[in-house]
């Protein structure tokens, strides 16, 4: 379509199934827009994103010769692409489309002011029409894409995502910060609901990942920087030394004397600074813990003492997409929270699971060398916190979310305890039991039938955990109001208190800033939309796998990882990606090569002044390299000749929109 063709604008005001029309008088808006210059048709629709609605748009383009489309509906993040595609199907350039948000930014926020909301809708639509008049056809920037993905995190989600991507013929670089893959899952024993051993399950997955020729694993490695864009990211990976070799590993391991708390057992045991976390880990070669190894000389078989050295190397990897699978940390209770850190009889559930694994052979449950006769579990520690009741954390926030897995994990553990230690008395202090998953309810039922004593507390009134008085039968006393027995105040003497701690996101501030991904109010990484794009972030080519996004169990992490892999394969499988054309463009007529744009631009290789010979004369002019241009528009503001603009977001379009908002709507008397 030549640009100089007569403008024919179609305008649609969507009811959004009542979401908009309950507040905004869509018919009045449509009528007012119908009388705007260049508008050839103005319609309303119950649901414009439906197939019928989209067909109407296509039909209008074909039959009425519409060459600009303006739609007022939900937020552009939801359906801008949907409607652009409708234009494509009707043979119109998709960038001749202008989206106006009438739901999130009008009907949903002015429900008490119907007249005001309707007036606002008219102005916003009028602004949309004003911009539409100045739209030009644009072509997406087409780039070659690396058929390789970067997976950050080597836990179960990262491993699974890597495998699924590689199985589709793409290459994968997996970067794990610690010296061993397997993540948090390796610290578990039997997993619900199948009672398989967690590390056996992991071993099967790791074997497939390791044996896949398309996957390269870096352990003790960190992503230090990411540059580029979807299809062409370049990640700088720092690889630390293993510190040992196949030849000297075992000798060094036995000679190493320095010990630190073992994070694999949540500090219950100590390990050396040269270590393997558990037998059968991958890679099998021990590694030096450089954070704790301080350069102490180690003597091997009475020989010369040697000092181990970390010589980090840097690798640049070119990838088309990035999977963030950085996982979670168990909530660390505050000093004194339910006696944690003050009473040695208060532990977390992950600690108890490690303790049980370490003391499997015992006939009785012991803690600190004392037999445990009575144990109490407290749910929702570090989860479901209430503003005004619970103390905020260091960053001023409270964990007001449910951690999803702790109820079943707790009841699963009580079942193991009942099986191994039949005489043990178990108390379960909860708010709501959330055994939602397949087979999970069985644990709840079995615990009820098996004699676990359930005590229900309210989130506004936490159980109190204190040291018992001297001479008491048990070291710890719990006071709690039980709403199952009509708010009776119970005193429960116990030998051990287990805190069912929730999940919280890892400290990944650096990575978040590097990738420019967003976090939700719960601080977990945020998806674009929980239903439309549940594993994608707002950054093109960066997807989420597993608990980096929010609490999940193993099964859910696996599903999320596979779903993320499917997105990566769909994106990179063809070896090319398309980018939005919203980059700077120079008006050759106006540009005389002042270079102000080049001076202000902060993007490497995005713009340069070049010399051309035209009609025998040398002329200087700025030239943009679209793939390197971010579209920030810094150049637009400084050009003395108004010769540069961001395509699709030009200054004159904004001026037209401002004028539309500032001015009154003509012919309104007749319409209203």
């Amino acid at each position, binding site marked *: 379509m030549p640009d100089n063709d007569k403008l024919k604008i179609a305008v649609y005001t969507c009811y959004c199934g009542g979401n908009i029309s309950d507040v905004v008088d869509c018919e009045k808006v449509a009528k007012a827009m119908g009388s705007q210059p260049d508008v050839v048709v103005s319609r309303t629709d119950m649901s414009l994103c439906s197939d019928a609605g989209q067909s109407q748009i296509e039909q209008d383009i074909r039959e009425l010769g519409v060459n600009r489309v303006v739609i007022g509906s939900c937020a552009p993040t939801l359906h801008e692409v949907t409607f652009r595609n409708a234009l494509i199907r009707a043979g119109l350039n998709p960038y001749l489309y202008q989206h106006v948000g009438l739901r999130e930014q009008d009907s949903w926020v002015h429900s008490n002011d119907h007249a005001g909301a309707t007036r606002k809708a008219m102005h916003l639509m009028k602004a949309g029409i004003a911009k539409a008049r100045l739209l030009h056809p644009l072509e997406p920037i087409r780039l070659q894409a690396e058929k390789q993905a970067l997976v950050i995190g080597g836990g179960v989600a990262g491993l699974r995502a890597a495998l699924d991507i590689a199985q589709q013929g793409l290459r994968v670089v997996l970067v794990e910060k610690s010296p061993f893959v397997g993540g948090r899952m390796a610290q578990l024993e039997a997993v619900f609901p199948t009672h398989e051993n967690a590390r056996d399950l992991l071993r099967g997955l790791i074997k497939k990942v390791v044996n896949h020729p398309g996957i390269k694993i870096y352990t003790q490695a960190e992503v230090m920087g990411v540059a580029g864009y979807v299809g062409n990211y370049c990640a700088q990976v720092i690889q630390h030394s293993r510190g040992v070799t196949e030849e000297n590993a075992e000798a060094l391991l036995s000679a190493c004397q320095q010990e630190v708390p073992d994070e694999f057992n949540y500090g219950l045991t100590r390990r050396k600074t040269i270590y393997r976390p558990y037998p059968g880990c991958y890679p099998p070669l021990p590694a030096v813990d450089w954070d704790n190894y301080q350069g102490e000389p180690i003597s091997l078989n009475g020989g010369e003492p040697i000092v181990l050295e970390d010589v980090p190397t840097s690798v640049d990897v070119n990838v088309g997409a990035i999977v963030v699978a950085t996982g979670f940390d168990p909530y660390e209770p505050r000093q004194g929270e339910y006696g944690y850190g003050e009473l040695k009889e208060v532990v977390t559930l992950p600690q108890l699971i490690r303790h049980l694994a370490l003391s499997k052979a015992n006939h009785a449950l012991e803690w600190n060398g004392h037999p445990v006769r009575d144990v109490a579990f407290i749910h929702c520690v570090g989860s479901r916190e209430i503003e005004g009741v619970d103390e905020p954390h260091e960053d001023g926030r409270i964990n007001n979310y449910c951690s999803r897995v702790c109820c079943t994990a707790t009841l699963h553990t009580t079942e193991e305890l009942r099986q191994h230690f039949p005489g043990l008395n178990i108390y379960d202090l909860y708010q709501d039991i959330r055994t*939602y998953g397949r087979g999970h309810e069985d644990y709840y039922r079995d615990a009820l039938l098996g004699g676990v004593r359930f005590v229900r507390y309210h989130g506004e009134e936490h159980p109190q955990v204190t040291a018992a008085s001297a001479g008491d039968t048990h070291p710890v006393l719990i006071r709690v109001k039980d709403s199952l027995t009509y708010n009776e105040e119970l005193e429960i003497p116990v030998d051990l208190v287990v805190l069912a701690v929730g999940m919280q996101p890892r400290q990944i501030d650096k990575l978040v800033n590097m990738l420019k991904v967003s976090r939700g109010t719960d601080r977990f990484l945020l998806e674009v939309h929980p239903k439309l794009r549940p594993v994608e972030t707002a950054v093109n080519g960066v997807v989420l796998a597993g608990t980096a996004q929010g609490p999940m169990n193993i099964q*859910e992490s*696996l599903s999320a990882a596979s779903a993320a892999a499917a997105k990566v394969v*769909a994106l990179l499988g063809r070896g090319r990606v398309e980018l939005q054309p919203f980059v700077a463009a120079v008006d050759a007529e106006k540009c005389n090569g002042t270079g102000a744009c080049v001076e202000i631009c902060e993007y490497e290789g995005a713009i340069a002044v070049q010399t051309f010979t035209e009609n025998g004369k040398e002329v200087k002019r700025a030239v943009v390299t679209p793939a390197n241009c971010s579209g920030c528009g810094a150049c637009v503001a400084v050009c003395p000749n108004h010769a540069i603009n961001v395509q699709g977001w030009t200054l004159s379009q904004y001026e037209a929109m401002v004028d539309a908002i500032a001015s009154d709507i003509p012919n309104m008397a007749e319409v209203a």
Partner: protein
Amino acid sequence: MKDLKVDALVVGGGIAGMQAALDLGDQGFQVALVEREPSIGGKMITLSKVFPTLDCCSCITTPKMSAVAHHPNIKLLTYCEVESIQENEKGFAVATVQKPRYVDEATCTGCRLCEYACPITVPSSFDRGLGSYRAIRVPFSTAVPQIAVLDMDNCILCGKCEKACPVDAVVLSQQPEPFTIHATAIILATGFELNELGAKKEYGAAKLPNVIDPLMMERFLSPTGPYGRVLRPGDGMEPTTIAYVQCAGSRDKTLGIEYCSRVCCMYAIKQAMLISGALPMAEITIYYMDIRTFGKGYEQFYQNAKAMGVEFVRGKVASIHEDEKHNPIVKMELTEEGRIIERTHDLVVLSLGMIPAVSSSGFGLVPASDGFISVPAPNASPTVTERPGIFVTGTAGGPMDIVDSIVTAGSAASEASAYIRSKTMIAESQSEVAYA
């Protein structure tokens, strides 16, 4: 006659099936999507708004329906029933039947003139019997495809639709048409049904007019619903006290359904919030045992509902009967106070649990103890069934919400694509051998 060969067959066109088909199609695989109803969209398209974002449900579903219909790699087959799945050396041969629409798919334009001409009114299953539609109709306003279907059980063969149709698309002589789909892999997305309203005899046995199921409430709340407002089906009155009975048909040994249906807490809270928007004066009570708002953003949603004034009462409802004005009376034990009370409401919604929509034995699979499709290794391959090459997504594999269904669809698509790729590679290497 219309046999076809594809990489993957997806059975079921609800949200999970649509997403699985899209994820496979986007990866370049050829997909057939079979749906037994005349339109895709599943249960989701009948909902009003969805938790926790309160997005208009149709705004999330219809674009996916549209994307499926327009996808170059997806062949959409509606009003078709899968009869059996046979395995052969090339994969699966799936015997399928195209049910007669009595309307020619190729010529119908969805203009609805037949519908306007039809003299027969029947209760609308789309509106769960609350509204009505004609014996010949486009299934619902946002249906995909927009093709009319004639309900022969209710048709009186008056011929008015035939005369009204401007393109002569009504074909009363249509017969069921069997055909075969050859597929390398199959994804089952056959979804769920709500347990029956009368399943629990103590809760009125479906005989109380003002005790309804939650999908009926969705239709009351939906802008495309039959009334466009919330009312009592018994007499059309606007209810002022509304109660939800949680776990009505889940976590209940007497019904043989011991599992949690996962979504009922959230849909009850969501409906309570929507009702308080529609009927600001209404008092809404939710009777529950445990509130299970475990998903991302769900706990805050629950707290918001409490702050809005929705009343949450912990207790087990023993029975429901009614007074002479058909007001339901809920008899329950208040577990926090240890006494038994009776409360009268204008309208009661039973938060019914999910049961499988089809038996998996039809696909040559042994159902799990909960009746849903069995997944032998959930902690290794959460969407892989016992039969190699057959995968499961969404509520066909047990209760789950829309978010989780969509994620498992991606997972099933990944598993299926790896399977297809491995099969095709074997086939290619074998044909090379044969060639040599």
